[in-house]
């Protein structure tokens, strides 16, 4: 279970503090597949970073009763000057996973060819997404935080990512942020809308999508 208690987040700017989240209260249960819909700049990535613990709220608090992945997207989570294989070794050590198996799994799943042994900074953005997603699958979390980036990748990998996410069985949770209703429909059972710094939850997916498109 993940529970957010009255979470507020603002960033300092030249024009004063920019309030991104203004009191988010929500609970995600184990096994839930929730889509979080929001327009560009609504604060979706900020919300994922706070849930992951990459950044901290200004006030309010976040309760985590299951293991939560890092936000899976274009940025972060790996070291750019070392190779994909070295990143896999590093994360295996950090998360206490068998090193050889982890490297093999990531090599097979990410399917990066000889790039796997080259520095990550030489990768295209699609390849970085593939590596990051494969690394997170290798670590095995209870809850995956996915930025819509995952739907990018080339089509063959997007297919495998979809299969892997669909395969996350009843046990694992998925929080997927997107500005596209179709992406949410493809992966999630319920949805919430992030608007004006608040998160409104809908039990029914169609209802949520209708409300999102009407807004």
């Amino acid at each position, binding site marked *: 279970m993940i529970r957010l208690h009255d*979470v507020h987040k603002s*960033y300092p700017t030249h024009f004063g503090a920019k309030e991104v989240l203004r009191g988010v209260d929500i609970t995600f249960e184990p096994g839930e597949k929730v889509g979080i819909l929001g327009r560009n700049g609504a604060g979706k990535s900020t919300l994922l*970073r706070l849930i*992951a*613990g*990459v*950044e*901290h*709220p*200004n*006030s*309010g*608090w*976040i*309760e*985590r*009763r*299951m*293991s*939560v992945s*890092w*936000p899976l997207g274009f*940025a*972060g*989570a*790996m*070291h*750019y*000057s*070392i190779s994909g294989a*070295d990143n896999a070794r*590093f*994360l295996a*050590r*950090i*998360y*206490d996973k068998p090193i050889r198996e982890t490297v093999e799994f990531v090599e097979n799943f990410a399917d990066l060819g000889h790039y796997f042994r080259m520095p990550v900074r030489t990768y295209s953005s699609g390849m970085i997404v593939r590596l990051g997603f494969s690394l997170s699958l290798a670590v095995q979390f209870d809850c995956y935080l996915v930025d819509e980036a995952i739907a990018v990748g080339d089509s063959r990998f997007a297919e495998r990512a979809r299969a892997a996410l669909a395969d996350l069985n009843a046990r694992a949770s998925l929080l997927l942020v997107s500005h596209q209703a179709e992406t949410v429909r493809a992966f999630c059972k319920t949805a919430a809308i992030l608007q004006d710094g608040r998160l409104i939850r809908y039990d029914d997916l169609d209802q949520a999508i209708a409300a999102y498109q009407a807004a």
Partner: protein
Amino acid sequence: MSEAIGPQASLWSCFRIQTRVIGALMLREMGTRFGRDNLGYVWLFLEPMMLGGAIGAIHHVTGHSLPGGLEPFTFWVIGYIPYYLFRGIVNRAPAGIVGNQSLLYHRRITVFDIMLSRHLLEGAAVGTALAGYILLFGATANIWPAEPGKMVLGMALMLGLSHGIALLIAAGSVYTELFDRITHLATYLSISFTGAFFMVFWLPTEMQKAVLTIPTVHCFELVRNGLYGTLVPTSFDIPYVTGWVAALNMLGMAALRKARRHLIV
């Protein structure tokens, strides 16, 4: 107040996770800083050895005699190498967080772990360089350390001081770029009064009192005492430096904890 709550873990398992994370970070730091090209990891201690050797050689050749009849080469080497540790850690501190921000995507990796692993690696590298010179002095000039334990203690206290200062600088760098601009200047100016290249007994009594308020001075004197023994008089106060190390580390950890909340990753 804002607090994150996770599954309850025992103190022991927290400790195990932290040591594993720090070990992994040290391996990665070795990989990113020295890579696998040409001499690779050998650079880790070859770099301080080369610099220390160059400084020692210059003073050996120019032939300034030192009070107490000390051999210039050994004196400058064992002064320069602990200073190299101090300067290396402090100068790298402003970039410590920025350069490793992507690692903070992993909640298990804390800013403190990142800093500590960098400093332990630096300490191991510089310690190896110093050990290399001790063997060299012994083999070529038959100068063996009178009390090797004091040399190790002097280096360890220097590492503790540098680590504490670096934590404060890293925390400050979250708020302002000022530290990035002035740290190099400050460490450069500090050469004259850290105690790397003078001995306390060379100075008049009043000056001795003044320089002994500077904690690094005690570390250099300890290292010298470890090598020369009673050959020359040295002055140091181990509890005094330990107090500094404790205070700087407590302040540094508190500052880092506060800065982490404001860090934009």
